[in-house]
């Protein structure tokens, strides 16, 4: 048999309990097998380190595909919109109106928009299908010392890591297209990440609650994500829209993220237009409009995970 180096063994069984008929034969573990793991088991479990191991093992097989799409999508968008559409815009007075080239104008917004899409993707199917419904991964985790709180918190952490990674890749591509204009652009990463979490964490709580998504996830993509993408000032300043329509921007996390993203990336350039300029007060309001829903979303997620796993 392949196993057993009995020298790795420590003290068997719980100390202090009198031996009974149920005791394993000498030298064996409690299950009658040779290799003892009981001495290594941590009563509080493996925590985030173990969950990180799972996430890396589970996601590494998608690494190539996901890296490829994370590289190709920004290249396609920046080519089509930044270079193609941007060329038309710039030659028709757009550049002077905006105070900068169109590519520089949309790049910070596209980083924020992509981050939100990644966040929505992470907060829907992987949680309901993988975690609770079909593979039931979260139930497997919860049968070990890991708590619902740790599982929920890690789910949000891993989501955050993936959102930030995709924003970082996007920025690198932006730089390759010559859209990187100030060191402040680096702050687009945390801004885009918070923006994505403002939508993704309440959505994660929803995914942990529903039994059967029906058409709700498809509807979220169709009626929330896509319109948000179109009307949050990504491609044009929302001042181009009718007054009554602009009100909608206030409930769009993408608009707040876009405003902040342009502020950190383009603000230091002091453009001739008002693009990228925000008063500190307004910047704080935008930030709060993202942080508050994100914090509420995290709390809701912790709660809904606890309820679902306790069933």
């Amino acid at each position: 048999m392949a196993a057993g180096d009995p020298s790795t063994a420590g003290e068997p069984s719980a100390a202090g309990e009198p031996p009974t008929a149920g005791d394993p034969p000498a030298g064996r573990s409690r299950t009658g097998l040779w290799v003892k793991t009981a001495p290594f088991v941590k009563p509080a479990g493996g925590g985030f380190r173990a969950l990180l191991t799972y996430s890396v093992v589970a996601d590494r097989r998608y690494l190539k595909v996901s890296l490829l799409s994370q590289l190709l999508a920004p290249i396609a968008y920046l080519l089509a919109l930044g270079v193609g559409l941007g060329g038309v815009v710039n030659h028709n007075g757009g550049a002077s109106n905006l105070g900068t080239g169109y590519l520089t104008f949309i790049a910070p917004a596209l980083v924020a928009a992509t981050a939100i899409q990644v966040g929505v993707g992470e907060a829907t199917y992987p949680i309901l299908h993988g975690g609770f419904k079909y593979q039931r991964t979260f139930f497997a985790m919860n049968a070990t010392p890991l708590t619902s709180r740790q599982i929920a918190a890690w789910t949000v952490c891993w989501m955050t890591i993936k959102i930030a990674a995709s924003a970082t890749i996007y920025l690198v591509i932006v730089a390759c297209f010559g859209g990187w204009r100030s060191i402040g652009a680096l702050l687009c990463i945390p801004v885009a990440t918070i923006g994505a979490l403002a939508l993704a964490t309440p959505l994660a709580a929803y995914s942990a609650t529903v039994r059967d998504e029906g058409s709700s996830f498809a509807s979220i993509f169709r009626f929330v994500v896509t319109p948000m993408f179109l009307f949050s000032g990504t491609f044009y300043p929302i001042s181009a829209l009718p007054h009554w329509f602009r009100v909608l921007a206030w409930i769009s996390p993408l608009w707040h993220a876009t405003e902040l993203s342009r502020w950190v990336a383009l603000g230091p350039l002091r453009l001739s237009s008002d693009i990228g300029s925000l008063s500190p007060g307004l910047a704080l309001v935008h930030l709060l409009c993202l942080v508050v829903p994100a914090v509420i979303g995290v709390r809701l997620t912790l709660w809904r995970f606890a309820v679902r796993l306790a069933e």
Partner: protein
Amino acid sequence: MIHAHALTKSFGGFTAVDAIDFAVARGESFGFLGPNGAGKSSTMRMIAAVSPVTAGTLRILGRDPAVDGPVIRSRLGVVPQQDNLDMELTVWENLYVYGRYFGIPRRALRPKIDELLDFAQLTERARDKVEPLSGGMKRRLTIARSLINDPEILLLDEPTTGLDPQARHVLWDRLYRLKHQGVTLVLTTHYMDEAEQLCDRLVVMDKGRIAAEGSPAELIARHASREVAELRFGVGQNEAMAARIADLAERSEVLADRVLLYVSDGEKAVRMVHERGLRPVSSLVRRASLEDVFLTLTGRSLVD
């Protein structure tokens, strides 16, 4: 190892487990038997320290699951009703990741995984993804996984439901070995043969309550007669015939195709039926089984 007193679980207005008492001793193999919806799985999830107790007391390994959930779970092995393996991961990765959840370091896990793969007869499939494995293999992997932390109690919720007879027998063989090694087993099942094979002691649950408790042999002695005579009178006649022979048995039952007489001496009962001038199309005498106890206690009507 496990003590439950007036243990209750409610979901909203529905009481799934209704004030049950039981205790499981170390090294014992204890079964919960009952139809679907009897409250077996709810009880198991409370013992697994994941589902909070609504009322009553529950102590697992001397601890309160409401306070020491993680500590209790670190010493349990759980085989859930529905496999929750990670289909995208390999067999080896499933065991490795699960071991990490218990905080077991890699150097201790490697030899353990080799041993468990051997135990579950999955060594050749170690590098394969779980998805294409057969139902029996997946189940064996789930059992191997539940042993990764050398559990003091192994909880098995319907371990062989949905498997073909060969796969069930392989699994029983593995579970029997564990039982023989002194592992405390707690299992739920609705298969009588499984209960008779694996359980030292069991409780029959129905509608959230315990209907009977004892060893398989005790339960048969207490709740069924020694033998059962099965008489077939032909379609449409069983009802009428049953009325004429019911007095021959301790208890009788009419089914669509046959009449059951619960008696101490089956041959004698059949002879007496014939003496009354009745001629069943066929007759069969058999020993009473746990299945008769089960149907007597929980009824024949289908629960969905």
